């Protein structure tokens, strides 16, 4: 059942868009971008690390590609990969230091990192300063720039699907399960005693997570054709965290569900910003207090195995379910 549903969804994502009007395509692009961000964040959240600064890695990827495209006329296709690579390199360098910190210390250190990244971009004219970088070009295919919503949608879709498949495989492999074992200091010690190199696992996961953030960040920037220190802020990091929590930490599909639902909900509330924050926060609290597994855990009410599929073991540890 699960495979069929998935195939249907992917088919719809590929076939339907040419019939959609540009606003729907815009929403689809934004949702796909956020789904990848959320899924990348989930990789390290299920490892027990809450990041308040993922926006910093996204920004690194975005700025890298924007600079390459505007200053050196590098093709955005290369820029996407460069963005991912830059974010990955920073993650690798900083991971060594920050992953040793647990709990809130890690969260605050990543937050500090993200703030510094934005502050640096704001301070120097080379990065465009507070005004940012405008006129970032779309990638070109066979000589033509992909300037319409529809054309770029397919770019986003391809990158998103590739990223999501990779992240799926990362989690449902022995490597992925090992990450679960590193959730707390105690379980990590236990894992190490069994011969698992915790630091290497954690660093690899962090690097991969940030790679996809940087990659999608670059794609995001080429969609907006603009980047500034006010695009990837602390509010984005908290939004992503809310999407993952509401969707549920118990399953790969949780973050996807959370992102799709909340972004969709958010679109209905365009008239005043604080109503959207209020609704998000209320939904978040309801889920945390009453639905600890997140919305994805409701699938258990639907049928045996539900949306998670029969073979998938329950990621209950990550969900903190009682």
């Amino acid at each position: 059942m699960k495979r069929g549903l998935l195939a249907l969804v992917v088919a719809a994502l590929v076939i339907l868009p040419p019939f959609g009007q540009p606003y729907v395509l815009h929403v689809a692009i934004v949702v796909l971008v956020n789904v990848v961000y959320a899924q990348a964040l989930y990789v390290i959240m299920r490892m027990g690390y809450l990041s308040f600064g993922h926006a910093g890695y996204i920004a690194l990827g975005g700025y890298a590609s924007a600079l390459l495209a505007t200053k050196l006329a590098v093709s955005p296709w290369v820029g996407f990969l460069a963005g991912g690579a830059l974010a990955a390199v920073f993650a690798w360098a900083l991971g060594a230091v920050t992953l040793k910190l647990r709990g809130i210390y890690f969260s605050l250190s990543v937050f500090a990192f993200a703030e510094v990244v934005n502050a640096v971009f704001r301070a120097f004219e080379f990065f465009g300063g507070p005004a940012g970088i405008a006129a970032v070009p779309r990638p070109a295919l066979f000589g033509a720039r992909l300037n319409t919503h529809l054309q770029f949608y397919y770019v986003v879709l391809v990158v998103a699907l590739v990223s999501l498949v990779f992240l799926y495989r990362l989690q449902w492999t022995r490597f992925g399960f090992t990450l679960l074992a590193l959730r707390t200091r105690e379980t990590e010690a236990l894992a190490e005693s069994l011969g698992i190199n915790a630091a290497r696992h954690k660093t690899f996961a962090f690097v991969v997570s940030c790679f996809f953030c940087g990659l999608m960040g670059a794609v995001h920037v080429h969609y907006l054709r603009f980047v500034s220190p006010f695009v990837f802020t602390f509010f984005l990091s908290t939004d992503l965290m809310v999407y993952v929590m509401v969707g549920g930490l118990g399953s790969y599909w949780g973050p996807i569900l959370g992102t799709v639902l909340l972004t969709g909900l958010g679109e209905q509330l365009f008239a005043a910003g604080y109503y959207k924050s209020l609704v998000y926060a209320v939904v978040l609290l309801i889920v945390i207090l009453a639905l600890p597994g997140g919305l994805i855990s409701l699938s258990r009410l639907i049928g045996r195995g539900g949306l998670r599929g029969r073979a998938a073991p329950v990621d209950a540890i990550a969900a903190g379910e009682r």
Partner: protein
Amino acid sequence: MEVYPHLLAQGLAIGVLTGILYVLVALGLTLIYGILHIVNFAHGEIYMLGAMGAFYCLVVFKLPFAATLAVILVASLLLGLVVERLVFRSLRGQWLQLVVASVGISLIIQSLGWIAFGIQEKNVPSFFTGVVSVLGVRLPKERLLAAAVGVVLVALLYVLVYRTKTGLAMRAIEEDEETARMLGVDADRVAALACAVGFVLAALAGAFVAPIYSLNPGMGLEAILMSFLIIIVGGLGSITGTVLAGLLVGVLQSVGAVLLGAEIAYGLVFVVMIVVLIVRPAGLLGRA
């Protein structure tokens, strides 16, 4: 610059006063983390509520000062008890959910604040206006008052935590809750009390700092960011650490601005935070 020494002295003075304000604002957050190991993101919003409370009591309802203080004290105490009972207690032990829940609470309070209080900047009239001049250095009176309140509250907190039975109970459940319970400590009540006191500290900080600046529903965000900064540097859960870090940051910002310009000084503070995180991640005086 010809006036260098004088400027530095002025910078130092303002820095110390501002630093004590930061300490006052961060105190509640330190307590709640120190005893309950909960990072209370809603801290900034309680600060905002305290300031708004002072505005409505003093300016709109024209209550006398003592009554205002009583209202704020009681209201924040109750709010702390309610939040602890409804949200924090059921999530005990799950730090991830706790943090996210407190983020949710802060968003709710902030959103309601915008809706209820509107966009106009409000002001609580100062209790003292004017400037005291000491050896040519100008010290605004209302900041001196707020600093005095800060010092008093820090002292009271020390007394509470280190010299009372309740404080002993708090430290007990912080160190080893199981054993404390076994020895007859009502951990739930102590936790509730710790949370309530943290909320009260935040609200009082808001009320006393309010006359110095202007008020708007978004002021909680700056408060929480600054509080986090202080606490990262000083050490989560350490009162002394908070005091030291607050003064350090205040002086660094001020003297740094005199020497290098405000922009760079602002960045410098972040750099210090990162250096501390790398070299001593638990903070200057924190325990890991």
